């Protein structure tokens, strides 16, 4: 059974069709890549999948549960986490607190527990802190845990965003250009991290990426979008030589 499946997902902004009838599915513990030129609807596809926008048409299923049009926070609680193309950290919180925000939906403490600081709330907090520190260790940021997130270097911010997303215990992790702006060495480290996440934490991953080296090295299945529509899908090797994909990027041969 597929973990996530979209049927004819479509998104219109006024007269512009940003995503056009995209059928898409991801299996458990699969790494899928989405490629396409600028403005081909990749990020918009993430946004309608995670409930930031409501799709104009089409449906999304997470393990056969219809999640179409759910608000963002419910999608996250159901088990889809994401990172953002333009990093969106909580700049005025410490690094460890950022990851603890990721634990938010998995905490059991209620408002009453908080106001009266019950033992179970304290236990909950300690567990969240411990888990957050483990995850920071995992992405290699444990020594920076007390720093403000806004003061981290660019590559570290990307790693932190990754840790924060994993903290929500997702079944599906969506990564929007995880290596954008990184040098080849850093990009390679992120690539390895993605593999480790899949292998040890057993989650499925979908990534948008412009760096073809990263894409070929991580994705097991690639979907190519152009002008919002799916133009090709297949294993990386085939996509690389697919005529339509090459045309989308380089234009038609005269």
């Amino acid at each position, binding site marked *: 059974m597929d973990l996530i499946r979209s049927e004819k997902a479509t998104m219109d902004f006024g007269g512009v069709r940003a995503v056009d009838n995209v059928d898409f599915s991801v299996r458990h513990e699969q790494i899928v890549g989405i490629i396409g030129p*600028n403005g081909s609807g990749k990020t*918009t596809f993430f946004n309608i999948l995670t409930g930031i926008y409501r799709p104009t048409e089409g449906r999304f299923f997470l393990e056969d549960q219809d999640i179409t049009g759910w608000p963002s926070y419910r999608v996250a609680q159901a088990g889809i986490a994401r990172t953002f*193309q333009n990093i969106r950290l909580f*700049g*005025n919180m410490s690094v460890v607190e950022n990851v603890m925000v990721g634990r938010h939906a998995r905490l059991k403490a209620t408002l009453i527990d908080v*106001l*009266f*600081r019950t033992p179970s709330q304290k236990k909950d907090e300690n567990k969240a802190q411990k888990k957050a520190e483990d995850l920071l260790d995992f992405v290699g940021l444990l020594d920076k845990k007390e720093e403000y997130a806004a003061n981290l270097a660019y590559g570290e911010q990307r790693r932190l965003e990754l840790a924060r997303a994993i903290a929500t215990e997702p079944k599906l992790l969506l990564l929007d250009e995880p290596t954008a702006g990184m040098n080849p060495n850093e990009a390679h480290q992120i690539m390895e991290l993605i593999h480790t996440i899949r292998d040890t934490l057993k989650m499925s991953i979908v990534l948008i990426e412009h760096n073809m080296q990263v894409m070929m090295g991580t994705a097991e299945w690639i979907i190519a979008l152009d002008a919002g529509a799916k133009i090709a899908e297949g294993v990386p090797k085939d996509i690389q030589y697919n005529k339509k994909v090459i045309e989308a990027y380089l234009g038609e041969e005269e």
Partner: protein
Amino acid sequence: MANLNKLKISNDPKSIFKNWRFWLAIIGTAIMISVPEIVPNDYIFRIIISVIIDIPLALSQNLITGFTGMLSLGQAAFYGIGAYTSSLLMMRLGVPWPLALLLSGLLACIFGILLSFPCLRVGSDYLTLMTIGFGQIFYIVVLNWMDLTRGPMGLPGVPPPQIGSIVFKSPSSIYFLYLSITGLCYLFTHRLTHSHVGRALIAIRDNETAASAMGINTAYYKVMIFAFGSFWAGISGSMLAHFLNFVGPMTFTLNESLLHMQMAILGGLGSLPGSILGAAILVSLPQLFKPIYEYQLLLNGLLMVILLIWRPQGIMGKSAVAKKVGQKSFLKQLFTRRDEPLGNTEATIEDESSNVGGKSNGSN
């Protein structure tokens, strides 16, 4: 492990005495208890009580604006709702004081929830306008509803607080009563902000989209914080009415809301002790400069300008952004677009440079 470490600290009797917070608490409590003995006259004592009454207002303003990032300017209305509710309940219906106090908080809380729903639907600038509008509506209703509020004449003869047969009439008895109410407010606010709720609030302020992508129900928290804030503003109003033994509409104007905002900003948005300091300064300053009463607002303005230049994050505020990226304060952040993540100036620059470098940065 963190758990174990904490246990160790609390079990070791020596380390408690090394903890500066412990000593601060002891000294603070000693000062608070001895205030009635130290204070030279009733006049200064009444100023201190006024500060205690205003602290919950500064705290709730701080929660709404400093933590959650909603620039609400309607706290005076909830303050007024509380004041009128408990005065009228006691004077007209003979409701006992503790119940009147609680009901004044609850009614303010209900109005806060009602106001928060339309506020959820609009962006931050319109939220400010809407809360100002709500404050104006409250003021005009109170001014014109002669049968209930006696309009501009106000309600004289509001009875002092009373529990059973104990009447809190002397300044020192009111002082201890109000100190414990405000103390409770501080305790709850502190616990709220030092928990996953507090993290959720800051997350909403720093980046709402990311907050909801982390599974935080942003609408729920906004409503909740409005409810919590207006509850305590209502309690404050009730305390004021039973202390002054008078309620009048002139206390609950937009100027009052602005003063609450000033308290929160002066002390430092996001800092709870800062709110206490802000309330203390802005309540006692007008009394200090009473001889030059006409220049009061000028002085207030000057104080804010100096503060924002010298320390934009407030006296006790801390901000990653103010520290790192020039002197960009929370206040400045409040007036900039919300969906721009705080302190991501670097990231944005890098994004752009990667564009220049030919590697595209698909923004769709």
